[in-house]
């Protein structure tokens, strides 16, 4: 899907600017100057013939859509593309057999690598929950979605864990509000 566009610490050089512009203008099919969910979805591949997970597309766009306009502009798109390329690199790292899918063991390695401590049985639950292709393995888009949800839950937990000891105490209401926004 394209090389890493730029290092976040350095401004883009001319070549990178041209490359970025050509990628984003190819994606912005209706030339509206903004990239919508649909346009991004069409530009992405999950390694199968099925469309990229629209929920994942929505999550990604909303991460970079500063003004809540429902799409990303030229500048925000650079962030989107880098984000996706980063995920691609991670996916490739853990898809050890290069099947284009991450199986249970590879998922275990990936998430353990990120620092999660999850039971073996729970990985069955994760795959059942996120694997839209129903192959017992996760495709690229579903892998991203799984990680995004785990990340959101972690973020919401952290907010309540004021002394950072890995424990929280919450009321019933707080628990419902925390969770209903995420899962």
């Amino acid at each position, binding site marked *: 899907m394209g090389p890493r566009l730029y290092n976040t610490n350095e401004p883009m050089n001319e070549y990178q600017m041209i490359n970025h512009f050509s990628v984003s203008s190819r994606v912005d099919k209706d030339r509206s100057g903004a990239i919508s969910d649909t346009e991004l979805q069409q530009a992405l591949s999950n390694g199968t013939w099925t469309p990229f997970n629209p929920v994942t597309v929505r999550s990604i766009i909303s991460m970079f859509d500063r003004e809540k306009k429902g799409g990303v502009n030229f500048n925000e798109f650079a962030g989107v593309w880098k984000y996706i390329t980063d995920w691609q690199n991670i996916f490739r790292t853990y898809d050890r057999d290069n099947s284009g899918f991450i199986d249970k063991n590879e998922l275990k390695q990936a998430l353990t690598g990120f620092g999660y401590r999850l039971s073996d049985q729970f990985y069955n*639950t994760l795959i059942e929950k996120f694997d839209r292709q129903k192959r017992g393995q996760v495709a690229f888009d579903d892998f991203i979605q799984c990680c995004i949800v785990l990340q959101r839950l972690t973020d919401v937990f952290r907010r309540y864990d004021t002394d950072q000891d890995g424990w929280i105490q919450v009321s019933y209401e707080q628990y419902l509000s925390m969770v209903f926004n995420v899962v």
Partner: protein
Amino acid sequence: MLATKPLLYPGGFPGQQQDPLYGYFTAVAGQDGQISAEELQACLTQANFSGGYRPFNIETCRLMISMLDRDMSCSMGFNEFKELWAVLSGWKQHFMSIDRDMSGTVDPQEMSQAVSSMGYRLSPQAMNCVIKRYSSNGKISFDDYVACCVKLRSLTDVFRKRDQAQQGVATFQYDDFIQCTMSI
């Protein structure tokens, strides 16, 4: 496909009473006597559970399985299926009693009343969170209503288990929080 063999005793168990639900269940369950989310969806559709309403979508069926999935097998046996049927029937009655015009949807206010009358005590903010998650265009469909009920029930169970003193406050360790919440 419904079984066509005229068995007196379903499953070949002598003396077993003919439970109408058993017929629907075994038609999809297969050898292992367990059903997956897809099979549950087929089963409920075949039994015309939703009646005049649209059939359940697959995600709602997955939620239903995990609500009763005690052994984390991601599938459901006949006893759980019976339990589910009873619970679903109650919710359906409830929904139908609010959906006076049989439109297949209820508005947030009606949803809020339904949730309260099921016994959940939620603040307006928490209630808003819940309803926002399940409305489309300001309305809640039967399928979404059921998904919401399932989730509330599951989350309440999770919470109760960690509220040792029954004071309405639960303690969660991080790894446990991630796993129990994601398992719903």
